[in-house]
């Protein structure tokens, strides 16, 4: 019964994606897409570090922004997790994490400008929302009994540290270090909007077709991510956290009157600011909704649906790479590496690359989202499959895949996929900045036209859309009785 509900839900999703594909523009318009791709690969094979000035600086800044941003996010997320029982806190967390870090950066750029605080807060704020939720869930799952053994009058914080936190410590550390990896990706991508991180130079090098410089920057980034475990040791983390703030660079000084101006003038809807009164606000909103928000929402939904289903398909194809039931001592590490490379490439970066190579359409975005996200889920499902014990006489090859493992893993697979749904949508919206007409495209246009009132309305709509999808996904998970715990979260 349960399986058939899962299967029919899946079929509905696939059918919907097929319908969406008819509405989507999925063409390759570049004249010589494979030639460009070949040039990119030759660039990866002939990386040239000398073409980018300030390379070491970019590397240091990428690390510094990630550490400070994730550090602040984790600390405030932990504080939020303490009071996560409150509905206001839960809603607040859902809201701040529904806005992508690039949108946060675009907002802070308007009043903090090119100051390190812009990049730090752009990472710290949405991450705090995520940390708050996940930390709360992890602590929730600990055994409450030790609490009862403490003497009467033990302080709340002390009690928490010695009971729940100490129990959940391994999970907290694992999750935080996973987010640090995400933070490095976010930090690099913030360069695309002007922070002095790797993305800054990557964008420039790409724009000019300097593929050897691109190759060098990409390889550096992969090395950074794949060696993370080697140099991020629990004992070293406090040291990194202490040094990182000093390595952010000075940027340009903040003028606080800009902050006031932003909140009291810039984001006030034009009719109110211009003194035309509330009666003009209606038509202003209707115009904004009909010409920008609705087309943006439509494209965001269409693209999200296609990307979600393709992510699912790719995940089912890829998870054997991370599973001991399909790999041996030789192919195991290789498969693992493939999955790591897929998930390490930020979707924003991948979409940017594919757009350059294939020309403008939804296709680069769909592929980028599917590749990145299936790398993540594939890795998790592969790991989950390792817990499955097969009979010694279990079939091998395709039969093992189709009859033994995939049916057993289908529940967790759907749970992960629904969890990523909201994330995929958030990313879809942001890819609009690259020129695909999702909500991000209109947000970026409003910012380029220095109309922050419009930008803020569109960002709010994006956030609400994300929260809506999150609620829908949670409802589906509950309906299909898909067990989903914080520990299983990527």
């Amino acid at each position, binding site marked *: 019964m349960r399986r058939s509900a899962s299967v029919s839900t899946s079929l509905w999703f696939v059918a919907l994606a097929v319908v969406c594909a008819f509405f989507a523009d999925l063409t390759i318009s570049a004249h010589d897409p494979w030639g460009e791709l070949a040039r990119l690969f030759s660039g990866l094979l002939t990386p040239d570090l000398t073409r980018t000035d300030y390379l070491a600086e970019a590397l240091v800044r990428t690390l510094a922004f990630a550490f400070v941003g994730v550090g602040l996010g984790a600390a405030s997320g932990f504080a939020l997790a303490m009071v996560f029982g409150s509905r206001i806190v839960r809603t607040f967390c859902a809201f701040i994490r529904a806005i992508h870090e690039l949108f946060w950066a675009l907002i802070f750029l308007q009043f903090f400008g*090119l100051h390190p605080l812009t990049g730090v807060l752009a990472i710290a704020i949405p991450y705090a929302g995520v940390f708050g939720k996940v930390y709360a869930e992890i602590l929730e799952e600990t055994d409450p009994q030790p609490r009862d053994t403490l003497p009467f009058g033990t302080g709340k914080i002390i009690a928490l540290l010695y009971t729940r936190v100490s129990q959940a410590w391994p999970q907290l550390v694992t999750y935080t270090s996973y987010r640090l990896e995400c933070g490095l990706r976010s930090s690099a991508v913030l360069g695309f909007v002007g922070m002095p991180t790797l993305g800054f130079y990557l964008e420039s090098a790409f724009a000019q077709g300097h593929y050897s410089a691109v190759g060098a920057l990409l390889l550096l980034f992969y090395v950074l991510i794949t060696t993370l475990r080697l140099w991020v040791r629990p004992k070293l983390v406090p040291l990194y956290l202490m040094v990182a703030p000093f390595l952010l660079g000075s940027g340009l000084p903040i003028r606080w009157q800009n902050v006031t101006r932003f909140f009291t003038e810039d984001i006030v809807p034009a009719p109110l600011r211009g003194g035309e009164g509330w009666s003009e606000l209606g038509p202003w909103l209707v115009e904004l909704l009909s010409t920008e928000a609705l087309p943006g929402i439509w494209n965001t939904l269409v693209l999200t649906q296609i990307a979600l289903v393709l992510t699912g398909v790719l995940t089912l194809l890829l998870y054997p790479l991370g599973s001991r039931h399909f790999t041996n001592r030789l192919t195991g590490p290789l498969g693992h590496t493939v999955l790591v490379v897929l998930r390490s490439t930020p979707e924003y970066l991948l979409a940017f690359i594919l757009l350059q190579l294939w020309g403008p359409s939804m296709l680069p975005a769909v592929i980028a989202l599917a590749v990145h996200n299936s790398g993540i889920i594939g890795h998790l499902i592969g790991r989950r499959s390792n817990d499955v014990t097969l009979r010694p006489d279990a079939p091998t090859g395709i039969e093992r895949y189709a009859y033994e493992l995939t049916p057993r893993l289908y529940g967790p697979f759907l749970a992960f996929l629904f969890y990523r749904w909201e994330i995929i949508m958030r990313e879809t919206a942001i890819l609009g900045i690259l020129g695909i007409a999702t909500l991000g495209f209109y947000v970026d246009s409003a910012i380029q036209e220095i109309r922050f009132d419009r930008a803020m309305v569109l960002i709010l709509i994006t956030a609400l859309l994300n929260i809506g999808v999150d609620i829908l996904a949670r409802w589906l998970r509950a309906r299909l009785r898909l067990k989903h715990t914080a520990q299983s979260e990527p």
Partner: protein
Amino acid sequence: MLGRIAFCLTLCLVALGASAQTFVFTAIPDEDETRLRERFQAVADYLQEELDVDVRFVPVKSYAAAVSAFRNDQVQLAWFGGLSGVQARARVPGSQALAQGAEDAEFVTYFIAHKSTGLKPGSGLTEELKGMTFTFGSKGSTSGRLMPEYYLRKTYDAAPEEVFDKVGFSGNHSRTASLVATGAYQLGALNYTVWENEVEAGNIDTDEVNVIWETPPYPDYQWTIRGDVDERFGKGFTDKVRKALLNMDDPKLLESFPRSKFIPADNSDYAIIEDVAKQIGLIDE
């Protein structure tokens, strides 16, 4: 652990303070951004010598970021396009256009087409263009967005999205050239100086892509300075900056713009740009 984190936060906030009285300038990222810092650093060194204050160049990633930095007083001088200059001056009372390139008084936009379109050089904005794919440059560019959109609307009496099958924003002029050269877009519109620079540098194969039309001339790029610099850097500072810019004659420095020399300009030179921007709805009335 929490104590440590709190300590780190304090350090973080301390580290974020600081800075002295430095004269900072920026430029809109309209073309080749690689080595932009290096090239403009030479201009910064020149200005530092002429003005006798610390001068710093800061690169930005978008036209809007240049305008924001100027408005937020994080930069005091900027090399703007026509539209970004108008946007910036409207938001900073007292700011003024100081100088423009000799080429900027009569700037034009080139419309270019990939050879697969079959369009002949100089064939103009004809009915044939309808239904093709087209790319602007940056959304905030004068020569890559504002003026071409204005002439497209004037010619076809419709929004670009209705004239063309697909309308994109490449991001900058060099990218427009390369996107049309690879055929990713059939048509594009860009700054003529960038086009000629790219052709001269051999980056563009003129067998693959050609100029089909050029707009009538309009005023474009200019140096704009904030109105409050005299208070902060001393009386007559604005005039000193103007003089330094107009006297810049080292070809190596001028190359980074690329301009032959700078000539005086003032705010009223750009009234036409403001007018056009209002007409196509890029600036509120």
